[in-house]
């Protein structure tokens, strides 16, 4: 086996590397310590000549390539050799740019560079070029769950891109909530440069267009619609999902899909929880959705109030009804669509009868979207009265009396109304919390915890996807019952690879946003199906061919990997061994970090590849006064922050040796113990922000790492070392000053507590 391997090292002396470092010594290090059979230098390795030099060596049989030049994040197009195992030693951002160019520092700077070369060579020696497993094939079929505006749009978008769609709708008709509306608010803003005149033509009411949308879906040969149907079973992985679609009558169909879009939408908030606003006490207090029904019945004529059919002459809209409130049973969040909806509904009245008194009582008027502000002005133009007031009560004895506090005039006041409309919000249609299911399964029979969980699960909504996953039947939730997805960075991604959430199931939104969402999620689903077909990872390591494997003979069936995987990628077989679903895996390595017996590895990233880097750092004698600090930095945020800091010339002490990791979640405790045993004086771990407003690309990786590291104190104690030698931080990509400072702080800490006694 070893005979097949041929190691080649390449050292770039450009960008000032050659001026600052002894190139000859670097070559010697790579050859002698790094055991590279061939070592070549170039004054500019990233130009055509340099790249050709590397390619020639690969063509000549090199299987493992070590490139010592700039950061692995730079020049990725030039140094792109997918057929070999490649490592990069970061001499530019990692060494010369973070150290001052003076004679007194020359020695330590050179030592830093030599170490990085040793580390990169060691890494190269312990890895393999990744190749796809051949487990997958391409399945272009997309499954869309939900037949509302989001689901229909997602289906049309996918079909238009040439990907056949199966759409599953629980009710007997397409259209969802959109079909219940009389009109919709405008999607486009007023033209640019529209003069601010009182008679300016602002965007107004629009037809919902739902019939057209339904027709398009029904006529599209690429879309198959299943009405009155639900998913009773979903298993597999991107590229090979297998779903069982059951109709109400009990007949089932089974089909295979490449990816899934979950557009299960929302349920209107239950206004029965708002007795203080007279809901349920008077039929003339209605929700915004109920008003749509009244408007539809009126069909352009005067809207009649439900109690006695009298034409409505005055109407009050109560904004944030049961929303943005910490009261029990209320929604703590803003549903984002209701202010615009109230403006729209006030215009229903005004267009029919300009003398109808319409008052919108709001605390903050929020009209998101391009047309929002213009539509607000359209309402004002039509004399809709907007009063900044907080409604405390709607008294329903006799006529309706809305009691509110005027927040501008700071006084309690009230108004009479024929009809009161409550602007109620959206509740996500998600399934039961999969982690509650998991916890229930893991809890001890008869324990109090098990009972609490059982009760919680009994009242949980029914499952939507019925996933046959180790980690529960549905998409994991984040806050307030919405599906977990990163609001800014990766909105459609969920924590189940290849299943994308679109529309109000992931956050409250309006029609236009839902349509945009649908397009985004459909594109992601197509990507996922295509990537799976090629055996490549989905976001965020898109294109990565490596995948985790495990040595079954070493596995103790502890199940930590199957429980901790943030994406529920790993199932268990009947003996309790992990079953990897390659295309469900995001390649973060959290399983690898979890494994106590170190049997999980990727071809190009393993306990060994990092462990060897740690072992190959030269540890000077205790009396040399040259400590060594191991920095394990997340490649998504912390490592680029350090690169950026280097570009801005922020100094880092010469004792630090930075190793990028895929995610802090992949850090195996053995790296910590090994490095301490090898004589490292301090360890700095840098992951991303965790918690509800996480920035971790792998959602839970950083949080899991923090949890594991909280127990590292025991290890330190057993070694008789000071606990401050290991520090775990949350670092953002913008922490240009802070990230280097954290490393320099560790150097100061070592100054205080002294050198590690474990140097040999």
């Amino acid at each position, binding site marked *: 086996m070893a005979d097949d391997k041929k190691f080649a090292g390449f050292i770039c002396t450009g960008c000032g590397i050659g001026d600052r470092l002894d190139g000859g010594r670097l070559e010697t290090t790579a050859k002698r310590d790094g055991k590279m059979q061939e070592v070549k230098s170039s004054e500019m390795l990233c130009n055509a000549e340099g790249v050709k030099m590397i390619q020639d060596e690969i063509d000549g049989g090199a299987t493992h390539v070590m490139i010592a030049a700039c950061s692995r994040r730079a020049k990725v197009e030039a140094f792109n050799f997918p057929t070999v195992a490649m490592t990069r030693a970061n001499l530019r951002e990692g060494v010369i740019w973070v150290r001052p160019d003076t004679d007194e520092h020359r020695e330590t700077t050179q030592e830093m560079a030599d170490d990085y070369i040793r580390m990169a060579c060691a890494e190269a020696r312990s890895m393999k070029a990744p190749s796809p497993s051949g487990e997958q094939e391409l399945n272009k079929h997309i499954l869309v769950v939900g037949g509302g505006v989001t689901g229909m749009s997602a289906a049309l978008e996918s079909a238009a891109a040439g990907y056949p769609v199966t759409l599953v709708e629980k009710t007997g008709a397409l259209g969802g909530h959109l079909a219940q509306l009389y009109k919709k608010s405008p999607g486009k803003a007023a033209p640019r440069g529209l003069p601010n005149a009182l008679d300016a033509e602002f965007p107004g009411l629009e037809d919902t267009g739902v019939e057209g949308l339904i027709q398009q879906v029904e006529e599209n040969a690429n879309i198959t619609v299943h009405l009155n149907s639900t998913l009773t079973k979903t298993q597999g992985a991107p590229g090979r999902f297998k779903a069982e679609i059951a109709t109400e009558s009990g007949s089932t169909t089974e089909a295979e899909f490449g990816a899934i879009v979950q557009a299960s939408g929302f349920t209107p908030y239950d206004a029965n929880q708002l007795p203080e606003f007279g809901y349920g006490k008077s039929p003339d207090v209605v929700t915004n959705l109920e008003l749509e029904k009244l408007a539809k019945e009126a069909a352009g004529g005067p809207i009649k109030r439900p109690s006695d059919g009298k034409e409505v002459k005055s109407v009050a809209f109560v904004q944030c009804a049961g929303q943005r409130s910490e009261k029990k049973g209320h929604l703590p969040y803003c549903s984002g669509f209701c202010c615009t909806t109230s403006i729209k509904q006030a215009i229903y009245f005004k267009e029919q009868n300009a003398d109808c008194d319409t008052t919108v009582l709001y605390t903050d008027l929020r009209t998101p979207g391009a047309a929002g502000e213009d539509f607000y002005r359209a309402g004002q133009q039509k004399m809709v009265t907007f009063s900044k007031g907080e409604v405390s009560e709607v008294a329903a004895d006799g006529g309706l009396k809305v009691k509110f506090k005027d927040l*501008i005039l700071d006084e309690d006041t009230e108004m009479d109304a024929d009809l009161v409309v409550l602007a109620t919000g959206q509740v996500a249609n998600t399934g039961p919390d999969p982690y509650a299911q998991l916890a229930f399964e893991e809890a001890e029979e008869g324990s109090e915890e098990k009972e609490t969980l059982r009760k919680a699960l009994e009242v949980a909504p029914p499952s939507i996807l019925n996933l046959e996953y180790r980690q529960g039947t549905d998409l994991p939730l984040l806050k307030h019952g919405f599906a977990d997805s990163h609001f800014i960075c990766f909105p459609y991604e969920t924590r189940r690879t290849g299943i994308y959430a679109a529309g109000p199931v992931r956050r409250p939104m309006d029609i236009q946003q839902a349509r945009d969402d649908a397009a985004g999620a459909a594109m992601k689903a197509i990507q996922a199906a295509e990537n799976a077909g090629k055996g490549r990872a989905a976001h965020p390591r898109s294109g990565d061919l490596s995948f985790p494997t495990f040595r079954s003979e070493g596995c103790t069936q502890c199940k930590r990997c199957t429980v901790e995987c943030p994406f529920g990628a790993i199932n268990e077989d009947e003996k309790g061994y992990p079953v990897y679903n390659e295309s469900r895996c995001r390649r973060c390595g959290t399983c690898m970090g979890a494994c106590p017996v170190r049997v999980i590895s990727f071809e190009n990233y393993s306990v060994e590849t990092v462990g060897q880097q740690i072992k190959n750092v030269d540890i000077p004698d205790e009396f040399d006064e040259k400590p060594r600090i191991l920095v394990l930095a997340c490649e998504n945020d912390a490592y680029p922050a350090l690169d950026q800091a280097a570009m801005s010339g922020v100094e880092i002490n010469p004792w630090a040796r930075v190793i990028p990791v895929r995610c802090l979640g992949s850090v195996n405790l053995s790296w910590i113990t090994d490095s301490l045993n090898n004589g490292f004086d301090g360890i700095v771990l840098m992951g991303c922000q965790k918690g509800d407003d996480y920035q971790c690309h792998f959602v839970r990786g950083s949080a899991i790492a923090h949890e594991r590291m909280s127990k590292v104190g025991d290890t330190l104690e057993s070694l008789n070392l000071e606990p401050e030698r290991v520090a775990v931080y949350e670092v953002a990509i913008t922490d240009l000053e802070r990230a280097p400072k954290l490393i320099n702080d560790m150097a100061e800490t070592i100054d205080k507590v002294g050198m590690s006694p474990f140097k040999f």
Partner: protein
Amino acid sequence: MSDLNTAMTAKYRNNFLKEVEANVEEGEWVKMCMQCGVCSGSCPLGKHWEHPPQEIFMMIRAGKRDDVLKSDSMWMCTSCYNCIVRCPRELPITHIMHGLANYAKRMGLAPKSQPTNQFSQLFWDNMMKKGRVNELKLGLSLYFKDGFGDGVKNAMANQQLGMNMMKAKRMAPMEIIGGHSLKDVSGFQKMIKKAHEIEDQNIQDFS
């Protein structure tokens, strides 16, 4: 005037916003206010106003007719135009303030002892006499507006200023007798009277 006030109150009953929209100069903009409060924050005299512009607009919508028209707030406006420049909705706030003050005056509701209101009346009366403003008499009437004693005190305090103005030919002492005038004063007075009638009629006739 108070007849007109009674008429207007009856006509618009509780919809003061409509009354303002129909009768106050630039009043049709009031409905477009979005209550951001930038005008109130920008007004250099804002803290001396009983109700800053944002609040006035809200009071109009809330139908607080008397509170608005009897307020001295819009009389405090110095026409610095900060609010107009800054209003994100581009409301002509300064003009609306003057429009409201004017309307309040016509309704006979403007606060009598408000100095700007008082001065405006003195200015108007002075001008109506000859069709020209007699500066000397205007100055004196302002000094003596609070009675003889205060008038003498004010005059003594500004004695030196007056002397200097005379020396510089900025004030003509002979204006005290008669003063300069239009050719056809009674024609001018008739014209203004007619204009007034038309305006009142317009207000009453306006939808």
